[in-house]
């Protein structure tokens, strides 16, 4: 029943949570960063069993198939662990910058990551729901971490209300799915769909489930909370939300769509076609008007959610390999996106500390007085824009490749064209920030900000390395995408 090897990562994470709390209690306030360090160590430790599991290989099912550790799960867990570690690195200096509760902060982040890790293996409605809540609940609190700041409170409450609301919708959908199919384990649901695929209750259930996840990944029109929350929340939290919780949402969507609803592709395929188109377009267009970098990144992450959804859109038409291709497209996009977006946020954090502002105008002439940061910003932003030779191009590429896969049809092509146009639009606002940083004159009195802290520098170096390496040698990330693509074959 229990496969301790398979569950080791989760156990280690649990232990880490306790350790972090303990450290927080024991060490003196100015040494609290040790809690963060412990957290990072824990995350990396949790990564070790992943490697061993990968080495052993094979798929391990537990609890009657409701908890599965397969290659997909391993890859995604690895992603969440690394992303979590980077977020923690980025958080440390930020937390020192103001009076925050440190220990609890690390605790909540780790808890949320644990939730994501659980979701990666969840193959059952209940498990999935639990995992999802475990991801979200700590995030609600983290969003409001800047207690004194009204915006932060507001961000937190909005995030919370909409979040719970969407959970309710999701649950309602799940209940309908359960009711119509009589199953809660994905594989069995998939088996039962054939019989009920016509029933409107079932369809309703599928759609409500999509809505629930649509909120998590901030797909239009379920995205409104995202920019406000990003703007109000502490920057590292925003970074986490845009990668960790969004990633969890994507993972949930991938597993539930491709395994549980594999038989209902004609339902979610078209629906997600619409969502993808809407999300890309609205996200990019609105991002054009932003003057606040964080808010801009919020909308950019919305737009990227749209790009991630694009490969889903043609599922109804696809079979076998093409389906795998689509799955691979979304997953690989997520992998690339995670690193470059974390990098972008890390750079923004660093620059915000340097310039003391998050307004694009205040970043004018950054390249003059701090070329390194400006260059980093350029790398990550243009990577987000998908300009070769930065990793972003590969994400866009697999996305296009997936949606154009055959048997392609006019829908696929038109969505690809929409995506192409969006890719061009996106360049506008990324380039705008860099124009400020590189081409506009520096202010007479240069802001003297804090020097770059070591942990943040480490975060930047890691993300930069991945972004460049994956740009020139995309197989680096594509490898994991390929390893995990098997899930798309029921």
């Amino acid at each position, binding site marked *: 029943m229990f496969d301790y090897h398979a569950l080791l990562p989760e156990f280690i994470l649990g232990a880490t949570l306790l350790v972090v709390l303990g450290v927080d209690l024991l060490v003196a306030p100015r040494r609290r960063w040790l809690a963060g360090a412990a957290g990072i160590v824990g995350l990396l430790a949790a990564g070790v069993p992943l490697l061993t599991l990968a080495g052993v290989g094979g798929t391990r099912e537990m609890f009657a198939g409701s908890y599965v550790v397969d290659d997909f799960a391993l890859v995604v867990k690895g992603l969440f662990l690394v992303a979590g570690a980077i977020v923690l690195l980025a958080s440390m200096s930020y937390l020192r910058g103001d009076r925050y509760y440190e220990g609890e902060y690390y605790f909540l982040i780790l808890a949320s990551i644990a939730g994501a890790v659980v979701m990666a293996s969840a193959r059952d409605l209940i498990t999935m729901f639990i995992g999802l809540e475990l991801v979200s609940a700590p995030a609600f609190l983290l969003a409001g971490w800047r207690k004194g700041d009204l915006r932060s409170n507001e961000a937190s*409450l*909005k995030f919370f*209300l*909409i979040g719970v*609301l*969407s959970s309710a*919708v999701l649950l309602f959908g799940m209940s309908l799915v359960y009711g119509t199919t009589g199953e809660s384990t994905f594989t069995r649901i998939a088996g039962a769909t054939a019989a009920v695929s016509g029933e*409107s209750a079932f*369809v*309703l259930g599928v*759609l*409500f489930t*999509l*809505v629930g996840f*649509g*909120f998590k990944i901030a797909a*239009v*029109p*379920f995205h*409104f*909370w995202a*920019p*406000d929350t990003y703007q109000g929340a502490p920057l590292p939290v925003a970074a986490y939300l845009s990668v960790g919780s969004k990633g969890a949402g994507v993972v949930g969507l991938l597993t539930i769509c491709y395994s549980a609803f594999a038989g209902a592709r*004609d*339902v979610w395929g*078209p*629906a997600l076609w*619409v969502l993808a188109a809407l999300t890309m377009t*609205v996200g990019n*267009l*609105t991002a*054009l*008007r932003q*003057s606040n970098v964080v808010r801009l990144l919020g909308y950019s992450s919305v737009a990227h959610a749209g790009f991630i959804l694009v490969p889903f859109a043609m599922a109804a038409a696809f079979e076998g390999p093409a389906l795998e291709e689509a799955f691979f497209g979304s997953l690989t996009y997520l992998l690339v996106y995670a690193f470059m977006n974390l990098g972008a946020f890390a750079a923004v954090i660093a620059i915000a500390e340097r310039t003391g502002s998050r307004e*694009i*105008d205040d970043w*004018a002439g950054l390249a003059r007085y701090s070329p390194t940061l400006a260059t980093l910003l350029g790398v990550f932003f243009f990577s987000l824009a998908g300009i070769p030779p930065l990793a972003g191009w590969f994400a866009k590429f697999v996305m296009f490749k997936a949606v154009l896969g055959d048997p392609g049809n006019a829908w696929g092509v038109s969505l690809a064209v929409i995506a192409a146009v969006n890719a061009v*639009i996106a360049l*506008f*606002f990324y380039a*705008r920030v860099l*124009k*400020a940083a590189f081409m*506009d004159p520096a202010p007479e009195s240069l802001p003297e900000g804090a020097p770059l802290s070591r942990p943040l520098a480490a975060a930047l170096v890691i993300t930069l390395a991945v972004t460049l390496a994956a740009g020139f040698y995309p197989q680096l990330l594509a490898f994991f995408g390929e390893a995990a693509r098997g899930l798309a074959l029921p």
Partner: protein
Amino acid sequence: MTGMLSFAALSTAEGGHAAAAADPSGFLGLLAQGAWLIPVVPLLAVGLIVLFGKRLPFKGWELAEGALAFVALYSIALLIGNWVEPMAFERHVEIARVGLLPGGGSLVLEWGWVVDGLSIMMYFVVGVVGFFVFTYSKGYMKGDVRFTWFFAAFSIFAGGMLVLVSSPNTIQLIVGWELVGLASYLLIGHWWEDHANNAAATKAFIVNKVADLGLFLGVIIAALAVGSFRFTDLLDAVEAGDSALADVGVWVGLALFIGAMGKSAQWPFHVWLPDAMAGPTPVSSLMHAATMVTAGVYLLGRMFPFYQAEGFGAGLKPLILVIGALTLFLGGLVALVQDDIKKVLAYSTVSQLGYMTAAMGAGAYTAGLFHLFTHAFFKGLLFLAAGSVIHAVHSNNMSDMGGLRRFMPKTFWTFVIGSLALAGIVPLSGFWSKDEILASLYYDSQHGGGGLATFVLVLAVAGAFVTAFYMARAVNLTFFGKYQGAGHPHESPRVMTYPLIGLAALAAVGGLVNIPGAFPAFTDWLAARVHLPGDHHAAALNLGLAAIGTLAALAGIAIGTAIFGRQRATQRERDRFRIPLLYPLLEHKYYMDDLYDYALVRPIRGPLARATNWSNNVILDGVVNACGAAARRLSALVYGGLDQRGIDLGINAAAAAAGEAGGALRRVQTGKVQQYAAALFLGAVLLVVGFLIFG
């Protein structure tokens, strides 16, 4: 292996033509082998002058002079050789090869050189006249701002001209053709501080460029019809009656003739030549009288068998004839009213080129080229003499001259010899060539030319009268009567007078090399070529015509002297003969310059160009900007605070639309959580409804 130098022996030479000429052997063979030096040496001189000219004792003149001396001697040697043993020699150097579809053949680009009667004659003219002119220039250009550069450019011309006449294929012809055009541009605009000269230079270049379109297209069409750029292959095809070429024969002929019209200043392309007088006089002498402008006639000569062949170019002979006749007559008339002595000579040149072209049109190969030959001497001479006068008087206007024969006797006598030769007085060179042309026209009128040829013959005789008339006018106004100018004119230095004398000698006796019946040496020289020209030339002197021509000339001289011989107060009075319509027409050169200016140049440079630019900056860019308007408007850093109110030209609309879109989105994003929730449900409901309807 492609791209490697490979010497291709002349294919058609041993093709067993009926040609009397053949590949020379022995010493002559060596001579012909080495003839590639003729164009190359002057071009080398150019490089050397540009690099080292300024450091040399004579500032680079010696290099140019040396090159020309070499060419002159070499050409004389070839001339004698050709006399001894008619030559028809070609060599080719492949410079590129381009696959040709269909058929998989290749189009070969080559350099090469020809040594046959025609080219040798041109070498001789360029070399000898050029030698004299270069010598003269040393004195004329003394102390000029760009003395060295002048000789560099002049050598570019010599080289280019020789490249042109030595060319065995049309590509190299084009290269030479444009090189002399370049030299002409550079030298007309030699004193480029004054924009008037630049305008003249540009005009010359552009007018020629327009005509060159003909040359380019003709060459292209012919080359693709035959599959080769070589003249020999082209003319082979003509002899073989090749149908592919015959199909496009008229177009090829017409196009090439248009090219020739440009270079040889045939009406209506002649307008550039008079303006070209803005250049230094030696330039006018060598390029715009003796050699360059005859390139067109040379081309007609080179292609002569083509224009003779029925079904190929023969159909164009009437056209050529008429163009030539028009040019010779109209050009001559304008010369009557010019005050600038160089302009008189320039229009005279136009007119004489008309004679040559008409001769070609009449199928008179020898006659036309013989006139080219003699004209080179006496017109070159006349220009140099005029230059010597200008040098002394510091003015081009004959109204500033008069009575100069006392001050500068050498110039006077040589000028007179030149004038008489031009007028065609026995036994000077002009007489023989002009008489030959008249005879050929007469012959043509008897054999198929019909009424047209007769009419042209009449015009030609009239032209002879006009020629004599304006030369008499020029001589009288310049050298007789009272000196009208300022200062004390004096004879030019020896370095300038000796060339005058040399050329005068040639102008005097040059005609004797081709006395029909008695001594037709020139005819035989020219006949030496691969493809027989198949022209007709007077077997014996046609005394009747000769008499008529001479009488016309004498009449012209007599009347001209009668009118302009006596002292007159003003130019107006001198030009007393006033014909209400004709005179203003002539004064304004038939308004052709104005026509071109107002009909073509101004519209293109003005409205058309501006409209294009406007369409680019406003319409095309407008569309582009409109597409990006939303983004532009939103990116505060580039267009910070740009107020888009009242923008027209479509941008406004698009921008506004984009703005509205953004605005709408903005209104949605109220920050009110409940509306977010509403949106969430709305989205869900829409999804469901949409699916239940379409699903």
